[in-house]
């Protein structure tokens, strides 16, 4: 794997996207691409190869769970780590996301260090 990682952030809220992008910008060698919703996310996934995906669950047009399902059936990205972000903290929601193929689950309010740690863990990045 190259030293630079492509990250896709799928989030309909500009504020949340800004927050996630800021958090991820703290990690070296990440190239971040933003998508407004699930459909936009699929469009971006078709155009490039990504090393990790962060997606909100509650989004218009196509929600995060449907996106996870579609990504897992895509030969190019079927093994790409996915982090699901949502306001819901219940065990059922977590289980549903993980059953569909998500690798990790972060509940809001998100903390930048938590996002950074999870991304680094899934990309096997050490250090700052």
């Amino acid at each position, binding site marked *: 794997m190259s030293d630079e990682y492509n990250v896709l952030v799928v989030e309909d809220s*500009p*504020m*949340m996207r*800004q927050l996630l992008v800021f*958090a991820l910008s703290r990690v070296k060698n990440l190239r971040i691409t933003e998508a407004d919703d699930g459909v936009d996310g699929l469009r971006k996934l078709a155009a490039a190869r990504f090393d990790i995906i962060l997606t909100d669950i509650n989004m218009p047009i196509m929600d995060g769970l449907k996106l996870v399902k579609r990504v897992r059936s895509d030969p190019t990205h079927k093994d790409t780590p996915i982090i699901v972000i949502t306001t819901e*903290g219940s065990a059922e929601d977590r289980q549903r996301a993980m059953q569909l193929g998500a690798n990790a689950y972060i*509940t809001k*309010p998100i903390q*930048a260090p938590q996002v950074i740690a999870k991304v680094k863990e899934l990309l096997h990045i050490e250090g700052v």
Partner: protein
Amino acid sequence: MTEKKSRERVRPLVIEDEGGTGTRDSSLSTLFRQGEELASQLQEEGERLRARVAELEATNVALRGQLAGDRSLQTALRRIDQLEQEREELAAVSTRTFALCSAVEADLANMANLYIAADQLHSTLDLARVLTHISELLEQFVGSREHALYYLQDGGDALAPIASHGVGREGLPVVATRPVAEPPPGARAIEQAFLTGAPLFDSEIAACGVDRPVACVPLKLDGRTVGVIAVYRLLDQKEAFTANDRELFRMLGAHAATAITGALLWLRAVGDPPHP
């Protein structure tokens, strides 16, 4: 070998002259022979002792070397102790540095939250978007599940909910801006936050709801309170307010009023702002 044993090895010299000159010559001959033997024995003994001395000297040198080695070992052990102490001190410094880095990272994240919140609040003059941004800020940064935004009505005698999240706006009370004897449930804390200009927090989060707000934050414009944020319920995973939450509330109290008032004035003066 001891001195006594050395004497035993050398046979004693005996002179025998009991029968006259002939006997004396014979005795002298015997004496010389015995003397030669004695000299030979002494020489052997001397050589043996020199060898022993050499042996002891060699042992001494070896022991001195060993002693010197022991000293080096002791020096090395002392150095190891010093290094161990230095290692422990460095480990303590490392722990403190790591904690400091974590704290700085947390502060940086909180500052980023404040920056993003302010940036988003003032990014539009569209009232609906301003209200959406405030709601998202409360949800994302504070962990609010249910909340409402109260704003001063024309005439200034009441606060009315202009936006809500998680609760129906129609079920929320209008709050008088003057103290009333029996305000509707949930209105007292909003009223107090408005009249005093100071935020109110309820520590019994689990007991809170629409009738008992968990937080009431006054919205201020040029020092004058023009509205109140009422938080009724928090997300399940949010168990208490932190110092950072209070800082965000303080920032929201200062910036949300400006953003709402600016959007309202724009709406009244121009109508809907142009969309790109």
